[in-house]
């Protein structure tokens, strides 16, 4: 394919120097999804290296590297591996490739363009936790990703990287690529396990945790695509190298997925801890005529931040200090021409639709919040509506059975904090209704 860059001006040096192409580098090579090209580009070298070490050494090494999960919660990867008991039972590795959090779009390009890196990571991780079977639960809609992953598994098997006695190590592994069928909740790790067992995707009560009672009630390690695909790079580069790529207390690179009102949206792999100001600079600046108003640091379930957070280093600790969550580094950028109230309405409609219905706060709370937003946006809002939203959030946060319910409150609470006037504008009639009362009533 042709390589034409739509070219705004060259970004400033300080921003450019934040770019660290590691995970995304092979995406530039059009054939990297094929085994021969992957091998030319260092593919499966990390596996050969890893197999020289004991399982325990690999886990110690991952802990040493400071690598944290890329699925949203940032849990240390080495520690998660260590939690899988070494008890002679069958163990499983399950890769969470359900990417569905609004704004998030980093795992699909990885699986489409560099599927072998995920497979190689899976083999190393499975070896470390002594799993003889791994499953990749791919979001159903991600068909091109599933297609290329399945091809990668076939190629890897033919080359002796999968199957029995991998590279003469005595280690056996089968990998199954399993497509979901359209349900955001299946990204929640315990709902994913139920779905993978052929059931409705509804979260499980914890404890017991998946580490001891996971898939088929057996010890299971669940990791995000990005967490596992980074493993071969870390094994080759070393723990210190990975740490140095990031910033203090935040090891490694991170793929920041920029979307919205920038000139050049896309995937920007940078040092963990890059600021929004630097990211916007890399993306060629804001779109013509748009001024930054708010953004999400990591998807719709992370509280939005206002423009004054433009210099917050986007890493786990600093984003938490600023009142949000790093999440999936899905940086959705909104401008003065986007309305936070409309944005929240649409997100809450999403959560209401995707609520699995298992617990009352989430099932009912999101349903009612949609009603309140539609009243506000059709020009029939009342002062009490803002209180109603706040109390709905209070009933959801911490009282929901899983993170979907908690996550739904993020945009509501944060927008009420930063943009209360935007809500009042609809109530006081300063802003015209954007929804038609008649059609809403018909719902």
């Amino acid at each position, binding site marked *: 394919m042709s390589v034409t860059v739509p070219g705004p001006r060259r970004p400033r040096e300080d921003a450019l120097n934040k770019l660290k192409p590691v995970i995304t580098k092979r995406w530039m090579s059009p054939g990297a999804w094929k085994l021969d090209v992957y091998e030319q580009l260092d593919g499966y070298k990390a596996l050969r290296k890893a197999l020289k070490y004991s399982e325990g050494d690999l886990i110690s090494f991952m802990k040493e590297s400071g690598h944290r999960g890329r699925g949203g919660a940032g849990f240390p990867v080495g520690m998660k591996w260590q939690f899988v008991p070494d008890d002679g039972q069958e163990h499983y590795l399950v890769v969470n490739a359900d990417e569905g959090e609004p704004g998030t779009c980093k795992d699909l390009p990885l699986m489409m363009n560099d599927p072998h890196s995920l497979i190689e990571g899976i083999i190393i991780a499975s070896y470390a936790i002594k799993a003889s079977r791994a499953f990749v639960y791919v979001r159903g809609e991600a068909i091109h990703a599933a297609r290329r992953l399945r*091809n990668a598994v076939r190629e890897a098997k033919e080359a002796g990287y999968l199957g029995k006695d991998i590279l003469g190590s005595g280690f056996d592994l089968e990998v199954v690529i399993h497509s979901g069928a359209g349900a955001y909740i299946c990204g929640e790790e315990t709902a994913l396990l139920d779905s993978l067992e052929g059931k409705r995707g509804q979260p499980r009560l914890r404890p017991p945790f998946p580490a001891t009672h996971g898939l088929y009630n057996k010890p299971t390690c669940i990791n995000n695509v990005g967490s596992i695909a980074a493993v071969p790079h870390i094994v080759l580069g070393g723990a210190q190298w990975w740490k140095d790529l990031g910033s203090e207390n935040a090891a490694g690179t991170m793929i920041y997925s920029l979307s919205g009102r920038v000139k050049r949206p896309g995937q920007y792999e940078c040092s963990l801890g890059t600021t929004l100001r630097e990211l916007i600079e890399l993306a060629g600046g804001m779109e013509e005529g748009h001024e930054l108003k708010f953004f999400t640091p990591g998807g719709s379930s992370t509280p939005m931040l206002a423009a004054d957070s433009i210099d917050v280093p986007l890493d786990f600790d600093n984003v938490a200090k600023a009142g949000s969550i790093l999440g999936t580094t899905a940086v959705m950028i909104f401008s003065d021409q986007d309305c936070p109230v409309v944005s929240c309405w649409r997100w809450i409609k999403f959560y209401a639709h995707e609520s699995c219905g298992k617990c009352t706060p989430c099932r009912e709370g999101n349903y009612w919040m949609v009603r309140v937003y539609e009243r506000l946006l059709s020009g029939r809002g009342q002062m009490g509506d803002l209180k109603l939203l706040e109390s709905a959030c209070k009933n959801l946060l911490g009282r929901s059975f899983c993170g979907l319910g908690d996550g739904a409150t993020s945009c509501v609470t944060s927008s009420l904090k930063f943009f209360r006037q935007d809500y009042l504008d609809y109530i006081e009639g300063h802003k015209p209704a954007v929804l038609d009362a008649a059609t809403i009533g018909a719902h």
Partner: protein
Amino acid sequence: MNYPEKIREQAEAILVRYPEGRERSALLPLLHLVQSHDGYVSDDGIAFCAEVLSITKAQVQAVSTFYTMYKREPAGDWLVSVCTNTLCRSKGGQKVFDALSDELDVGHDETTADGKITLEHAECLAACDYAPVVTVNYEFYDDMDEEKSLGLVRELKEGRRPVPSRGAPLCTLREISVQLAGFDEERTAGLEGNAQGDATLAGARLAAEAGITAPAFDPTAPLLAKQPEEAK
């Protein structure tokens, strides 16, 4: 339940992917499989899955109705999904949906009178960097607007198969359901379908142009300060 031998063989091939005694895991792929035959999850399809897994029809139905990709009515050859979640909506996704709804004279989850095209609004499709996005049978058409999306469905109506921005050349929804059931893409051109795009490569290209690379490393350096124990 008159499913051809081929479907029964495929069902068997799905079952063996999962550990013995854990065949229930095959239910989602099996539902994709019956959809590949019937164009939706029919009563026969439900009965078939129940029979194959030795579970009740009610158990199958409870699962099939939980997931949006299982259609309850016969769907068209072309499933056109328009993302209208917040980010795409802010960049025109709702306008795209409305334009297509007018053009096709159908609403969400409805199929055109000739049975060819099903329209739906979708939640975030993990392609926000190409907003607003449309998919046809889950292959991506990136950076859409009203005009481009109208052009796309008009071509579909005329029996053409416009090439997606990312993904494989189009095949029908029934054909794609075979792949969703976990079977290999048989078309070389399907595997080779483009996966790159300006947004995907934005950061990597910028770095390449500016001559920026990650720091070098010694791939042979030991993982831990001590030497590797001889594993096994």
